[in-house]
Structure formats: structure tokens, C-alpha cells
């Protein structure tokens, strides 16, 4: 079981082990560090490239390296490594289907005090629509560790979305993360499907409602786009799906669930929870929970919402 480590250290520690055995593994950092990367830089200096605070160039350098057979990880704070260089991601990893893994730290609003510049709240929307792209949205360290292996083996582009803080361990050792969906509470008539750190909220909501005699399932959508056959199988026993994401509503996890339900004519109702920024971005300070309360993403609001239906 992974101990109290940040997701980025968990991820880079595993990439370090892979890189020691494979000189083609290269990290292109846009001036973003991590304690685990210090070891990488000192032991494997030839496999670490700092592109400076220049995300567009970082993605292009990554592309050139990938065209020569390198397995490249392009790394920075999530909004910058996904949005500043969106066109480069669109054309090269995605457009040319190259094995480049974009790694962003700072999922959702975990840079809680930094304001909208540092909130990664549209990254799922813009990346899930790209050809060949798979988003890996981490909810715990066991999963994060596994994402290093999965992305290392992948021949197509990936985006690994990591939280900044140390999150509780959820999954046991040896969990297979190839399914894309994890069932964390048995799927019931009412089931929450969430991603990233919001899984912890979903579990608390489910546990609170169980005490009130209401069974609520919890599905962890850690791989996006969600595959229809896996989704169909996982939601077989559900009739209302509550989507939950620390992300803007348009285009995110909830949107994809709606698309699946509509496109495949599934007998499901969908209720979405996420950010509505139609009236402006979030400038709330005082912690992540404060932000969640403002947007009804806190346990209490979600319990009421599900209980009321």
C-alpha cells in the first residue's frame, strides 16, 4: 500500500523505476518540480529536460522526442500544461497519435487559494474530445502508481490528472486499473459516478445515506472517455446516476455520461454536480471545502440532493 506520499511523488517514483530500466523514458518539465524528480534529475540527467516556463515548446520538444521513439512525459501545473499548449496537444500527441503522456498536477481547485488561473476545471472537457486521447484521473496513490505503468506501455497519448494534496488510500494493493471504472460501493438504484478527489466525497455521501437506510452506489470513473460497454455493465442496476466532478459542468464527466445515456438509449436519469461558471469564475478563498460548499459539492448538499429525489 502506498504510504502518505503526494500523487506526483508516487507517480514520478514509479516513472523513475521504469526510466532506470529504459533509457527512452524522458521527462520534459515546464519548470515544474517534485521531490521525487530531484532523484530523477541527479541519477538520470540525460532523461530529464527542462523546457522552462514554456509549455508550448515543452509539448513540441516532447513531440520531436516521441518521433524518435522516446516515451515522453510532459509535466507542469495542470491548467498550464493542458490549456496554454492545447493546440500543440491537439495536433501532435492527439493528431499524430504519439505516445506522449501529459502530466498535470492540480486537478480541479486543489490550488484552492490561487484563484482561477490555477484551477484545472476545463481540462477534462477539452482533452476528452481529442482523437486517441485517454485521461487518467487519479483518486488515490495505488491508482497513481499504476497509471505510471499503464501510460508507459501505452502507444497513444494520455493525460494524467493528479491532485496536489495527499489523498486517502482507497484501493488495495494489486488492484487492476485496466477497466476504466472502479465500483467502490455496490451499484444501487441511486449511484454516484465521480472522478478524482471527489470520490472521497462520494464515499462519504454514500456512507452517510447508508446510515439513513438509503443505499447509494459509487463508481470511480478514472479513465475518460468512459467505454460504453464498461459503462453499460457497471450501471446495469442503477436508475439514477449522480455525476460528481470538481470540474466545470459543460463537457466534463457529467456531460460524457449524458452523451452515453442519450446515444445508447440507456434507461437512466442523470443528475449532474460540478461547477457552474456561467456567471464567472470562482474567487472564493479559505479552502477547498469552502469552494465546494459554494457550489453545492459538499457532503451535506449532496446528501440532501440525493435524499430529496
Amino acid at each position, binding site marked *: 500500500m502506498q504510504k502518505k506520499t503526494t500523487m506526483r511523488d508516487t507517480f514520478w517514483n514509479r516513472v523513475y523505476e521504469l526510466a532506470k530500466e529504459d533509457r527512452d523514458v524522458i521527462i520534459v518539465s515546464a519548470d515544474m518540480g517534485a521531490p521525487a524528480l530531484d532523484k530523477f534529475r541527479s541519477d538520470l540527467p540525460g532523461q530529464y529536460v527542462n523546457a522552462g516556463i514554456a509549455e*508550448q515548446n515543452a*509539448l*513540441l520538444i516532447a*513531440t520531436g*522526442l516521441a*518521433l*524518435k521513439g522516446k516515451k515522453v512525459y510532459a509535466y507542469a501545473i495542470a491548467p498550464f500544461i493542458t490549456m496554454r499548449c492545447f493546440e500543440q496537444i491537439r495536433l*501532435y500527441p492527439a*493528431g499524430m497519435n504519439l505516445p506522449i503522456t501529459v502530466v498535470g498536477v492540480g486537478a480541479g481547485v486543489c490550488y484552492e487559494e490561487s484563484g482561477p488561473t490555477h484551477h484545472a476545471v476545463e481540462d477534462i472537457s477539452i482533452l476528452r474530445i481529442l482523437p486517441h486521447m485517454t485521461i487518467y484521473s487519479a483518486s488515490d496513490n495505488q491508482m497513481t502508481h499504476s497509471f505510471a505503468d499503464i501510460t508507459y506501455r501505452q502507444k497513444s497519448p494520455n493525460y494524467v490528472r493528479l491532485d496536489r494534496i495527499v489523498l486517502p488510500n482507497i484501493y488495495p494493493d494489486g488492484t487492476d486499473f485496466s477497466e476504466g471504472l472502479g465500483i467502490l460501493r455496490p451499484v444501487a438504484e441511486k449511484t454516484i459516478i465521480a472522478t478524482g478527489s471527489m470520490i472521497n466525497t462520494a464515499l462519504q455521501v454514500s456512507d452517510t445515506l447508508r446510515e439513513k437506510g438509503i443505499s447509494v452506489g459509487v463508481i470511480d470513473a478514472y479513465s475518460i472517455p468512459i467505454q460504453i460497454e464498461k459503462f453499460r455493465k457497471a450501471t446495469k442496476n442503477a436508475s439514477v446516476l449522480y455525476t460528481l466532478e470538481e470540474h466545470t459542468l459543460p463537457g466534463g464527466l457529467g456531460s460524457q455520461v449524458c452523451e452515453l445515456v442519450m446515444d445508447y438509449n440507456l434507461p437512466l436519469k442523470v443528475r449532474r454536480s460540478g461547477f457552474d461558471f456561467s456567471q464567472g469564475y470562482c474567487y472564493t478563498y479559505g479552502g477547498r471545502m469552502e469552494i465546494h460548499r459554494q457550489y453545492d459539492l459538499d457532503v451535506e448538499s449532496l446528501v440532501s440532493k440525493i435524499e430529496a429525489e
Partner: protein
Amino acid sequence: MDYSFFEKKAQQLREEMFEVTVKAKTGHLTSSLSCTDILTALFYGGILRYDPKAPDWEGRDYFILSKAQASPILYEVLADTGYFPKEDLNGFAQAGGKMGVHLQSSVPGSEILAGSLACGFGIAAGLALALKKNRENNMVFALLGDGECYEGAVWETAAFAAHNRLHNLVSIVDRNYICATHFIEDELSLEPIEDKWRAFGFEVKRVDGHSFPELFAALANVRSRRSTKPLVIIADTVKGKGIPMISDQPLWHGITVTDESDIAQARKELYNK
């Protein structure tokens, strides 16, 4: 040295490429004409190492057309050197065709998808870095437009290439002085362009991009330069070179001649050179 072979080859390429764009009724004709002599020197002058029968040959040099709007002339060169049959050019930007107005990576020899400016240059630097790491001595040649140098990402890459001493990267700026809408120096100046590249850490050469003696002089010994700096060659050119009626005029960007009378006049000017 007799440069007549290159003069004739460039003329042939211009004529054939012109007809491809006329047939397709599209293609960035003037942008292609300004760099025709540069591509002729690289591909026919023994500068680039390549094998049209094995586009993925590990020992090849990489030619990256960062100003990918000039794809008509690259496609013409790739067909002429034997990467694919010349008949394929007949499908340029047409139904069932294998190539469009900008660069498509599925075309043998094209290396990358391109058309969004500044991207090819960064990829060229990434390739050069990978080659250095692998201790392979292939070279990377990138062709940029001068208007492309407006893109901030060009300068992100320039700083990176110089810092990482990518001496295996040769960049050529097709300095035709015109971007899409106007004359560059009037609208938003790029001069002193040599100083800018030099300040970023490049070895800079400036040539007449239509002079084979000057192009070959600048490209001589690019594999055995003493400097560890990346090399940039600013090649002064004329946008639309070879067809005076469309030369050096901003409004001829991004199109080809389509009116019958224009086509006749352009043919007259091009073929009766």
C-alpha cells in the same frame, strides 16, 4: 561551380507546382515560390540525406517544413525525388486526394502534420535533441517563414535550442517580407532579425535565398561546424518569385491564380522566363 542544373531544376519544380495549384484552384502559390530555390538546394544539392524508397530510413536527415503553407512545393519535391508517384499530385486538395493545402504526416517524406505556425520548429528542436541523446549524427533542417517568427513559440524554441547546443539543427527563415495581409516591416517589424536570433544564441548567416552560390556557401560544411550553436540562415527571398505579376504583393497570399486571363499571364511569365 556550375549552378545551371539547380536553376533548371527549380524552374521545373516551379512550373509543375504551379500547374498543380492551378488545377486544384488552391494552394499557397507565392509562399511556395519564395522557398523553391531553398528546397532545390537542400534536396538536389547533396545537403539533405534521404532515401525516397525508404522514407523512414533511420539514417535520414529530417526536413521539417514549419511554414507548412508551402506544402505545394514540398509535395512537388517529394514526388519529383520519388517518394510517391507524380500522379498523386493531381489529387492535391481535391476529393479522393491524399494531400491538402497544409502538411499531412501520412504523405511519405512529410514527417509531420503542420499548418499551425511555430509547431514544426519546436518539433525540429525535439528531434535534434533526441538525435544528440542517441549520439546519432543525422541533421535536422527546419524551414520557417518570416511571418512565422511573430509566433512567441518560435522564440521559446530558439532559447531552448541555443541552451541545449543543438548544433545539429539548421533553421532557414524564408524572409519574403510579406505575411498574410501586409508587408512585414510596415505592419509589425521583425528587423533587426539577425540580431534577434544572435541574441538568442544562434550562429546567424544571411543570404540571398534565390542565389544558389550563396545558399550553397551558407550550407557548406553544416555537418562539421566548429560552433556548438544552432545555425539559422536568414534567406532573403521574393514572395511569388518566378511570376512577376504575383510577386511581392500581399494580396496574393494563400491562393493561386484562378481567372483564365491571370492563368494565361502567369504561365507566360513563368514559362518564358
